[in-house]
């Protein structure tokens, strides 16, 4: 088995070389004092100039969180998090007005993150830039850039406003559209939902807000780019997307962070609401810093994502490519309330070196003829541990409900682990649930076939892994699909190629 031996050797040889987004930006920042208490919650609320009801909402969440116990059931291990040893607010000093005034460091940051120059100007917060049609002739992507605790810019807002679409940071939405925020915030993920959601509800700082009005098909992809930069901080973003009846939106999310020896907590909450005939497609390419080969540093990505298909024939589709983070612990879920509503979950999760992932989805079938599809591809390399955990629950009235689940795991090297833990609860006779799971390693014959045609082993393995993940990657919008393919390759660098 020379190929395998070689693979394992490569795993050991290359270590953290793969993470290209690990730099740190030296920029003047404003911090809240370290620690977590009611005063910090008040501080954040005041910084954001929030109405009284929201402060009360936060304080209620904080009170709940204090009474809760940190959950330990996931198949991940980490040393206790000191919630007092962190800044819960970190923001660059006031943003620039024109490109000349942009802090060159901030500008450089986006250049390094690989965002084209024109978009770069947008990201750096230059108003008016990028409103002209894109050079390539393709529809551009509107971006909300969140840097530590604040949104530094949102692009194409005016273009979107023409269709009545609201796309802005959630802080801005609180000011401009308080009635919408108040109506929907916490309506899918209540404050006390779980330990990390309660924490987020108390101290969330920024995130994106999207409202697509009745019958509108959003003319461009919307996206948020999350960047953790400051030391000793956590990121607690809150995203809320509402698709009114008959509307359609595709939303992308990307994230990176510097390489550090400390672990940083990222505890986000994402809530989606889809009304009658509405469709929300939510895609994530998660590329937080994974830590080094020995498991030092890296982001703890403990996120609550849930969508409610409230209306008939509505649809929510989650696609996630999880390559980063020291620990990924999340279950993007769908509550299928509307009759004939559809939930989808497509996931690729890679764990290399000492990374750990416990991820999957929950599908709650409540309405009649609701359908859900789950496709999960787990790839474990190095000493990584990868768990698919999922729940399909069919309530007694979900007549004609249907679920299909496919979970495949690929093992690269004999020091890693791949685990599958599906829960199926069916209380409706006319519903049908099907689940399949397989675990195997890269087939010798596939490798041999590629090698025989002159492909170096690293490339061959990259190709096979991409093939393995294809069913999921094809669900991504094109811009992301290309990036995701490259990421898969880079994430496995040092393990295979």
């Amino acid at each position: 088995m020379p190929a395998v031996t070689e693979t394992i050797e490569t795993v050991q040889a290359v270590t953290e070389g793969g993470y290209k987004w690990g730099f740190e930006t030296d920029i003047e920042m404003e911090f809240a004092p370290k620690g977590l208490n009611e005063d910090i919650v008040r501080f954040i609320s005041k910084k954001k100039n929030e109405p009284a009801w929201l402060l009360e909402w936060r304080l209620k969440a904080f009170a709940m969180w204090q009474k809760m116990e940190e959950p330990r059931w996931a198949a991940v291990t980490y040393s206790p998090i000191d919630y007092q040893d962190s800044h819960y607010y970190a923001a660059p000093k006031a943003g620039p007005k024109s490109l000349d005034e942009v802090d060159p460091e901030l500008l450089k940051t986006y250049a390094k993150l690989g965002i084209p120059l024109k978009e770069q100007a947008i990201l750096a917060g230059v108003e008016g830039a990028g409103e002209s049609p894109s050079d390539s002739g393709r529809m551009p992507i509107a971006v909300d850039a969140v840097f530590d605790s604040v949104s530094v810019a949102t692009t194409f807002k005016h273009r979107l406003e023409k269709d009545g679409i609201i796309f802005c940071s959630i802080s801005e939405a609180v000011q401009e559209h308080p009635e919408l925020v108040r109506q929907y915030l916490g309506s899918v993920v209540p404050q006390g939902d779980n330990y990390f959601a309660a924490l987020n509800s108390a101290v969330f700082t920024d995130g994106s807000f999207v409202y697509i009005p009745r019958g509108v098909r959003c003319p461009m992809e919307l996206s948020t780019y999350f960047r953790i930069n400051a030391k000793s901080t956590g990121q607690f973003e809150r995203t809320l997307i509402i698709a009114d009846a008959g509307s359609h939106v595709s939303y992308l999310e990307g994230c990176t962070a510097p390489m550090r020896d400390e672990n940083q907590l990222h505890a986000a909450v994402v809530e989606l609401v889809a009304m009658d005939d509405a469709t929300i497609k939510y895609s994530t390419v998660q590329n937080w810093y994974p830590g080094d080969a020995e498991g030092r540093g890296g982001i703890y990505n403990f996120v609550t994502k849930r969508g409610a298909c409230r209306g008939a024939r509505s649809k929510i589709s989650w696609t996630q490519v999880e390559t980063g983070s020291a620990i990924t612990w999340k279950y993007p879920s769908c509550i299928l309330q509307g009759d004939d509503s559809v939930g989808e979950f497509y996931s690729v999760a890679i764990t290399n070196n000492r990374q750990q992932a416990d991820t999957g989805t929950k599908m709650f079938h409540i309405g009649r003829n609701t359908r859900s599809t789950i496709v999960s591809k787990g790839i474990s390399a190095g000493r990584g541990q990868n768990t698919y955990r999922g729940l399909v629950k069919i309530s007694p009235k979900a007549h004609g409900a249907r679920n299909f689940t496919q979970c495949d795991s690929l093992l690269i090297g004999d020091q890693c682990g791949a685990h599958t833990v599906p829960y199926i609860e069916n209380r409706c006779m006319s519903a049908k649930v099907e689940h399949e799971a397989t675990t195997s390693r890269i087939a010798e014959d596939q490798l041999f076939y590629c090698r025989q045609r002159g492909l170096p082993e690293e490339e061959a393995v990259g190709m096979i892994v991409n093939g393995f993940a294809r069913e999921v990657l094809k669900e991504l919008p094109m811009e992301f699909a290309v990036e995701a393919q490259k990421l898969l390759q880079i994430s496995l660098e040092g393990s295979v190629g």
Partner: protein
Amino acid sequence: MTAVASTGAAAFLGRHEGLRNRLPGARVAWVEALRERGASAFRAQGFPTRRVEAFKYTDLAGVAGQVFGEPLTSVDDAPALPDATHPRAVFVDGRFRPDLSTLGELPFAVRSLAEALPNLEGRIGALARPEDAALVALNTMLFEDGLVVDVPAGVDGGTIELLSLAAESERAPAFHPRHLVRLGEGATLTLIETAEGPLNARYLHNPVFEIEVAEGARLSHGRVQQEGREAFFLSTVRARVAARATYDNFTLNAGARLSRNEIHVALTGPEAQAHMNGAQLAGDGQHLDTTTSLDHAAPNCASRQTYKTVLSGRSRGVFQGKIHVHQVAQKTDGYQMNQALLLSEEAEMDSKPQLEIYADDVKCSHGATVGALDADQLFFLRSRGIPEPQARAILVGAFLTEAVEAVAEEDVRAALSRALDAMRARQGLAAGLEEA
């Protein structure tokens, strides 16, 4: 004056206190120590609640809330026995009854655990450790009897039957037999186990099996659980299978108001094999749970599991099955399928298959389906003039047959088919084409 608890863990702990000087092995130091281990583990764990992950879908509150009594020390009138087709050991309320047993001349040793106890040091509690499971702990502190089977190396033990009966009584007895089965190198044995009792009697049957299958040996273990409809059946099987040995288990889980059927198999030597199959048939008011775990702890082992559940009336079925592949267990081939049919609007199936894999050169898969009878298949049969109830029964039969056919041993398969037909008839799921 302290009140004596009559229900729950406290009642059983109180019983252990009261009986400790009268239970078998009371003056044998290691037995006392073992029972003490059982008691302290049970004291620590109590009856598991639904907050315990392994009992997420099975609530033991119904057992914990019951008042159970002692089995009578002697049963004067013997219950009616079904016909024996093989040498048979009979237990009544958990106690061995030589007068009812027909073991005859066997080429190996079959003993009552109560009698053999002083010589069994190291054999009890080694595989089924009280610290690992509350129900094993409960059994360990209170076991009184059981069957001890030792088939020496190279001996073909043929087929024996183990029949456990509950006597008709108002005492709601709780009994906790401990059975030990050991096959020497290259030995073979077929063990057909039946647990039954009066239809409406209330009792708790809490058997624990510790099974060792040495190198190259082969044990075929067929089990028919057809306890009365008010009974509680909480059973644990723990088996260790050595190199090139095979353990076959088929469990028909069909009786009892609440049944928890745990089967834990460890493949500890290269090329060991486990075949675990089963069927569950639950009618109105029943809760049937099969929980399996398969430990692949050596390379080149194979395991096959097929479990089928049919639920009618207001019933609930549970299947939990874990395949754990250790890092040394390269070249593992593991397969598990569990399927459930819901025949009523009030039935519920909860299924949790699980893979935990630490070796890379493996082939492991599991599948699960839950749904109603296939409408097309039903239509096909109806269009050929078969009335609906019979058409449904035919399809149910075909669904279950797949699991039974996986049983290699003919004696076991025949016994299971008979039992299955009887249980289906009891639940109104027999095809009845014979009369038609």
